């Protein structure tokens, strides 16, 4: 019965991806390609993973990544653009699930046992590596700040990073604002926390992420 369920899920996922649009390059610029009824490519899988992550479906995002990159944890940031995107999605899925999402939860065989803390530390390190390859990119910095904010030992660094971005109005991630709000609240900066929550709510499709705990 379980196998049947997985098969049905896989079929549904395949159908959804097979008709999804994807981005590509033409004339030296970006263009949007129309849907083509064919087996989803890794590009489509990662686009789907990004969409799942954006919609708060962290486990689905991780599953989509693992379907194309089962050994994503071994990926080198910056070596391959698509793999780097996949690495970012997987790391953020881990962060936003508070370390709950891992290969086993995603239904993929793995010998490794990931504690939530080890999982979060891995995700923060992955974001650091992406940041090193994409220096001075506030999008990556916001993701890194969000990841670091989950680790007690790195909260000060996260606070500095996210505060600077917020001060310059360079942060587009509601999750990063939510992390900043939480840290400010923990420090007793209620006004700062409320300001960050307000920004988070303005930016978020689902404003519950601005005040409620993460979920898988």
């Amino acid at each position: 019965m379980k196998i049947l369920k997985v098969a049905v899920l896989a079929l549904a996922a395949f159908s959804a991806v097979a008709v999804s649009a994807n981005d590509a390059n033409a004339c030296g610029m970006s263009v949007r390609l129309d849907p083509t009824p064919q087996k989803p490519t890794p590009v489509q899988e990662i686009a789907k993973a990004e969409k799942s992550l954006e919609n708060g479906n962290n486990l689905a995002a991780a599953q989509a990544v693992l379907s194309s990159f089962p050994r994503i944890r071994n990926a080198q940031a910056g070596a391959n653009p698509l793999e780097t995107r996949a690495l970012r999605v997987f790391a953020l899925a881990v962060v936003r699930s508070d370390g709950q999402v891992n290969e086993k939860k995603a239904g993929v065989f793995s010998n490794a046992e990931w504690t939530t803390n080890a999982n979060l530390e891995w995700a923060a390190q992955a974001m650091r590596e992406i940041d090193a390859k994409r220096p001075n990119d506030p999008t990556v910095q916001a993701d890194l700040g969000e990841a670091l904010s989950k680790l007690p030992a790195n909260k000060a660094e996260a606070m500095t990073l996210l505060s600077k971005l917020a001060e310059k109005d360079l942060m587009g991630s509601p999750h990063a604002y939510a992390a900043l709000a939480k840290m400010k609240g923990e420090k007793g900066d209620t006004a700062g926390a409320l300001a960050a929550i307000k920004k988070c709510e303005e930016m978020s499709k689902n404003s519950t992420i601005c005040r409620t705990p993460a979920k898988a």
Partner: protein
Amino acid sequence: MRSTHKRGPILPGFALFLFVILFSLGCPPKPSPAKDDAGPSAVGDAAVVNTPVATAGDAARGKELVATFQCNRCHDGTGHEAAPQNKHCVHCHKDIMEDRFKAPAASITRWKPRVKEYADAPSLEAMKMRFNRTWVEAYLQKPFDVRPNLHQYMPSLPIEPQQAKDIAAYLVPDDHGSGAPDLAKPDLGKGRQVLETKGCGACHSMTGVAAIPASNPPSMDPREFDRAHKLAPDLRYTRDRLRYVQTVKAFLRDPKAVKPDSPMPKIALTDEEITNVVGYIVSVELSDLPPPKKAERLPVLERKVTFKEVDEKVFHRTCWHCHSEPDYAIGDGGPGNSGGLGFKPRGLNLSDYNGIAAGYLDDKGERAGVFAKDKDGTPRLVRAMMARHEEVNAPNGNGYGEVRGMPLGYDPLPLEEIQLVETWIAQGRPR
């Protein structure tokens, strides 16, 4: 890639100089007849349209700069190999139009109407024989619309004055001689008649005189006519752009003998007709261009504007083609992100919400927000979009300001779209 008020969609392809130009000749030594009273005139003695002014420039350096500014992404005849197919705006668009581009059929069908108008750009071939170097130098720094039927414009590139001199020296290396004197005396009235009856008005306009009626052009292949129509310059500027009379006359007699890739058709004209029509074009009195129209921003909307709406109508429709995410575009985020066309990498990614919020790299290499307000409270993004209106509305390239207008080389965005962006920003940039 979009339809706008005057010309419809525009792609980043541009129109460095011009190609067809017609006729030219004789500097008018005295005031010419009024435009609608074009009788015989004494103009035509001079051998050049414009007295060339020698400007210092290093042609070898100019050739390098033509490569640096990637003129070969749009123009043929640069003296460099054409840009690779995946970087060549015009060739790429042609491939799409002629079903050579590898993409899903649905995408090709959707793209075709958008790129149809962007599959041509003037070639730079034979410029050295026809152009006025001083004009080229000025145009490189402040380009303006000399081809009213071509949708794209020559973009304003970050070309320094000395660089413009060098490029002009490369493109027009010999700007000193004036050729043998041309003693023919044009009859401007008859010259006007030639313009009206020989099919010139089917492609060319000439602002500053009464509109040229569209008479029948010579029989042409429809595709060749379409190309000729798009690339036909406004004859108002001929007197400034061109120089040798003999070359221009030779061009009129047989365009392809002077410029082999010219779509200008060969028109049966007598020598007298050529003298008269060229005389008219270069010496008839022109009325002043209208003063620039002031484009006023529309007030922010009362209704809610989401990122989805702004993204669909503006960012992903127009901006994204040049400001994309490198990881999504084979490592090249376009000239507005990864650099190109002489622009240094600005890191501006307008392809998604986070990227837009992440801003751009300023001249010091520091990140700056596109929503940062200037002294009158206008967000930078809105300022750039409005600047494009000012650039296009002011005649002869006199509308350039501190902020480069966007979209580069395109028609300005309709004011309603800028209003949408400004409203979205004012509302806190909601998703």
